[in-house]
């Protein structure tokens, strides 16, 4: 199925809208039509905001007719992960707990995208409360990988990645706590960036693990990622952890020039645990960058083996508190049979949360409970410091760290659901980036023999998103092959 405009990037659409080659309405209608035609197979969307999207598009077109300056995302059709607070529609976090929940406010990121004249098509699926790596933990539906409908799209921003890969939107807003943008981006062949912790306001992002969560875009190319960051980054008085730092024009970093760039290759990332095909594609990508004048240097991240353990202690501890508010008092699910207070809590929570969420709440409660705090939580925060220091030292020798995003391409449904620990281990390369608060970007670097996308990850110093984007863009423009499109209709 050919779909005019749907295969375009955000910056291409914006330019066309600004030039008057197309109206935002036409672009939006094209996307809505494709969603109706295709999403029955992919199941990326949880809400389609037909009228709302067209109204937003019409406002953009009206603005153009009136001669006003158009925003940097004018007419760009965007989908939002189910945990982004919006006044429009529902904000369910793909949980039974929040079915029907209507947020009384738009999150800061949503406001900024709207101010940049973007068009919201609707919301997309995710693992319940962003807990998962396959989107199989959604209470709403099962999202498929457009490259192979028998495979997971990754998670937790699986709906975002699938929607972008299947051209069901131009870009999608995800959130990343331990790899939830980068891993699905890798498995679906998109670009996904997790900005430095503090770059993007978390106000309006339903919290999973507050010290690790960060919002970022999943896009079709690196330029779109830069463009989107231009719109959403910057200090927000509603988020005390948003950093008061000037936001550069990220698109200006896309120079194509990586001469003399020092690329660090962590020896711990290229072990036997890394699948052969992924290794091969990542190594080929390194050669492309070398060919462009970049230098490579071996670096070491000696504590990276401890990252998953530290991560699951910290994120479950924070989650156990963050999710305590879902008690059926002010919003959310309340069990109809609850007679007394304790019954209201226990029955509502037990029935409202899915098994993975319950498991993480229990783990987090355990590691914080009396007698265990020092052994788990405190210890994990010390290890977090060691992991950050590893990166600090690595960045004395290099400008950007390069490695795989995931050990292997997309896995099949049910493959890892039986053993939660097995699922946790699939986040091995992405998690330490969150622990160290660094910016990380995943971009496609080839297809596996079975036609599944493979992603590579770039990591930079705090607030050095420009280095990531410059490197990724240089590779993307010179990789010498076309990723093609998923083999759907």
């Amino acid at each position: 199925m050919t779909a005019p405009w749907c295969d375009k990037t955000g910056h291409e659409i914006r330019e066309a809208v600004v030039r008057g080659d197309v109206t935002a309405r036409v672009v939006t209608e094209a996307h809505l039509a494709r969603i109706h035609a295709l999403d029955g197979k992919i199941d990326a969307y949880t809400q389609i905001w037909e009228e709302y999207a067209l109204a937003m598009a019409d406002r953009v077109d009206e603005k153009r007719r009136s001669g006003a300056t158009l925003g940097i995302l004018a007419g760009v059709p965007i989908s939002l992960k189910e945990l982004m607070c919006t006044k429009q529609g529902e904000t369910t976090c793909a949980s039974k707990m929040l079915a029907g929940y209507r947020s009384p406010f738009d999150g800061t990121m949503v406001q900024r995208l709207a101010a940049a004249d973007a068009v919201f098509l609707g919301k997309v699926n995710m693992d319940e409360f962003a807990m998962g790596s396959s989107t199989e933990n959604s209470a709403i539906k099962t999202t498929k990988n457009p490259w192979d409908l028998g495979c997971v799209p990754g998670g937790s921003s699986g709906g975002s990645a699938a929607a972008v890969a299947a051209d069901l939107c131009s870009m999608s807003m995800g959130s990343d706590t331990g790899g939830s943008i980068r891993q699905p981006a890798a498995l679906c062949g998109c670009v996904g960036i997790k900005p430095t912790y503090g770059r993007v306001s978390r106000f309006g992002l339903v919290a999973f693990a507050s010290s690790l969560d960060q919002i970022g875009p999943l896009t079709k190319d690196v330029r779109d990622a830069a463009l989107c960051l231009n719109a959403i980054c910057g200090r927000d008085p509603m988020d005390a952890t948003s950093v008061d730092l000037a936001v550069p024009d990220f698109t200006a970093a896309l120079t194509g020039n990586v001469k003399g760039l020092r690329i660090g290759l962590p020896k711990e990332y290229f072990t036997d645990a890394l699948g052969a095909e992924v290794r091969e594609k990542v190594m080929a990508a390194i050669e492309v960058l070398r060919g462009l004048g970049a230098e490579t240097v071996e670096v070491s991240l000696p504590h990276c083996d401890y990252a998953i353990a530290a991560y699951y202690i910290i994120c479950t501890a924070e989650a156990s508190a963050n999710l305590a508010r879902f008690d059926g008092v002010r919003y959310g699910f309340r069990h109809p049979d609850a007679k007394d207070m304790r019954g209201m809590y226990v029955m509502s929570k037990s029935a409202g949360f899915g098994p993975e969420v319950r498991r993480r709440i229990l783990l987090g409660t355990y590691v914080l409970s009396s007698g265990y705090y020092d052994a788990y939580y405190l210890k994990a925060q010390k290890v977090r410091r060691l992991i950050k220091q590893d990166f600090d030292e690595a960045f004395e020798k290099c400008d950007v760290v390069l490695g795989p995003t995931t050990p292997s391409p997309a896995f099949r449904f049910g493959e890892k659901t039986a053993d939660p620990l097995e699922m946790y281990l699939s986040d091995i390369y992405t998690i330490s980036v969150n622990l160290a608060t660094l910016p990380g970007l995943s971009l496609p670097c080839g297809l596996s023999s079975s036609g599944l996308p493979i992603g590579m990850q770039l990591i930079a110093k705090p607030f050095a998103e420009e280095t990531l984007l410059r490197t990724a863009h240089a590779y993307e423009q010179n990789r010498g092959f076309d990723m093609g499109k998923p083999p759907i209709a």
Partner: protein
Amino acid sequence: MSRIGKAEVEHVAGLAQLELDEAAKERLVHEMGDILAYMDQLNALDTTNVEPMMHALEMTNVFREDCVGESLPREEALRNAPNHDEEYFIVPKILEGGNA
């Protein structure tokens, strides 16, 4: 031998206000046991002189000025509540002195 027992799972569930049937308890004894055993590998690291990273950022003193802004209209505030009247959120009877 699992890292934790059923009694501990029950205790933690009580703290978290979750109820578990017997099968779930059995399963969690193993799942949580495996995960906690995996977490125990941190003990291999000597972290004696390591400052815990209690805050993600180095920033301090991020405050707001003492200004009154807009509150929500009451209907908006109550709109999502499973049970409410015109003025209040309604919950099952709260026993006197029950709070911490």
